[in-house]
């Protein structure tokens, strides 16, 4: 079943800015989908329209088969939104913020507070449930918005840059939580500027640029278009006088005494590289990708070059 189906979606703001030029987008039920694009590409406008915060100029939006124009109540009931900016009342206690949100979705007061407790515990915020939201740190505020979005148990969770400004530890904890929510059946749409985040979490991606969808595919297929990938190899012993050279078809470049960079093209086996390095007495202690793969492709696509199939 399609969780989200967008057809010919258009938006022109009152000041004449054309934000969306008639986009089509499909997200399947249960998917973890990344909507990517540079600043001002139209990501937040798409999300705003889906969530009824922005009036569309044309086109249709369907969520789990419900049309936004003819059945907005059913569409809204299905969606949980974690917006980019903090948009809760800073002068309300956390517990009330979450419980009130449940109330807006028709959850009785007693049950709303029970669900608020569950969500706040899940996001590790329960020990602050009676505190005013303004007293929270930035990371806690982000988690509060996730807790609030989950309190009515939406089938589609939309997160607009949920980990912006969040430290590494909390970011990883949030990734784990989002994976778990997705595993339990909730469809997730994520926008993010951290492409590593999209690569780690998502199965499908859509790339929007200048109000148009320029790419919509599975992450695996997209990454499969990479012609070559660079890796950095950490060596056990310092390597002196190693001129940049090609070893068995692998282009090697020395970055410093203990680091080599290697370019692995599509079809090359990395095992043969290690065997050849071992024959030369070079012991590799570890390796990492020199550049985020998705980032590399994203830059190509957005700049108009395109990696090609």
């Amino acid at each position, binding site marked *: 079943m399609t969780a989200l189906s967008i057809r010919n979606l258009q938006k022109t*703001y*009152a000041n004449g800015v054309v934000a969306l030029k008639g986009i089509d987008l499909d997200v399947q039920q249960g998917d973890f989908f990344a909507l990517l694009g540079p600043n001002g590409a139209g990501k937040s406008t798409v999300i*705003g329209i889906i*969530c*009824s*915060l*922005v*009036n569309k100029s044309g086109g249709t939006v369907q969520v789990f088969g419900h049309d936004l124009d003819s059945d*907005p*109540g*059913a569409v*809204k*009931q299905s*969606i949980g*939104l974690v*917006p980019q*900016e*903090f*948009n*809760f*009342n*800073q*002068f*309300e206690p956390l517990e*009330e913020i979450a419980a*009130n*949100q449940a*109330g*807006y*979705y*028709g*959850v*009785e*007061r007693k049950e*709303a507070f029970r669900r608020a407790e569950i969500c706040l515990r899940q996001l590790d915020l329960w020990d602050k449930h009676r505190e005013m939201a303004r007293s929270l740190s930035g990371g806690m505020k982000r988690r509060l918005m996730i807790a*609030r979005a989950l309190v009515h148990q939406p089938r589609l969770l939309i997160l607009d840059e949920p980990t912006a400004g969040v430290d590494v530890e909390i970011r990883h904890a949030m990734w784990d939580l989002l994976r778990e929510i997705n595993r339990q059946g909730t469809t997730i749409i994520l926008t993010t500027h951290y492409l590593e985040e999209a690569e780690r979490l998502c199965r499908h991606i859509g790339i929007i640029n200048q109000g148009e969808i320029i790419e919509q595919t599975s992450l695996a297929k997209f990454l499969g278009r990479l012609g070559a990938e660079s890796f950095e190899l950490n060596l056990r012993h310092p390597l002196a006088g190693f001129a940049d050279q090609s070893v068995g078809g692998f282009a090697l470049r020395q970055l410093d005494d203990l680091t080599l960079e290697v370019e692995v093209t599509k079809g090359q086996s990395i095992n043969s590289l290690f065997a050849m390095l071992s024959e030369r007495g070079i012991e590799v202690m570890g390796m990492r990708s020199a550049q985020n793969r998705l980032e590399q492709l994203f830059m190509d696509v957005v700049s108009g070059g395109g990696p090609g199939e």
Partner: protein
Amino acid sequence: MNNRSLNRIAFQTIFTKEVLRFMRIWIQTVVPPGITTALYFIIFGNLIGERIGEMEGYSYVEFIVPGLILMSVITSSYSNVVSSFYFSKFGHHIEELLVSPVPDWVILAGYVCGGVARGVVVGIIVTLVSLIFADVNIHSYLLTLAVFVLTSILFALAGFINAIYANSFDDISIVPTFVLTPLTYLGGIFYSIQMLPEFWQTLSLANPVLYMVNAFRYGILGVSDINLGVAFAIILLFIVVLTAFSLSLLQRGVGIKS
């Protein structure tokens, strides 16, 4: 879940949130009208009022009781909704409601009833203060209550419209300062329009607050400068027009959607 129970729960949630909001800051919202009214009674009622003598068969202090109560109700209902709704726009937490399946009319009803609730609380406090200074015997409880509630609804709606159009904190104080306060003070709270020259009497009839104050005064004292039927017709007409206009603004997303 059916729409009826969703609407009921959503309304209760908005209403409860609104009541908790003004009760949380009761020192700013509920106490000041009581103090202001006490000062009016001391200065206008006792000190100056004794020199004025009787007005329409009542002592001056008794004559101004209905107007002072209604003035507090008008100001409280209006300011509760205008400040709460504008603050929710300013802090973007209105988005919590816009993304949810709550219909526009429930949002409007929740905020308006929150304003009426504050009007009721303040009205009770001001009435209790009035009893310290004047001997009040209510002529018609039903009429008094009806005017009280309808006036509160009307000004809560007006506050809602002001909040929708407001783009800054200045915008939510301009209307109360330059429109609401003059209309209220010139609405016959402190005097009977029979005291005015004919031209000013006629001009006063264009002031809607005059009808509310006089209808309320009739409910409490049994005297009025204007016809009760006309007063109720005007109050109800304003409520219908402002409700329709508020719903139209919400439906179009004026001031709250891009």
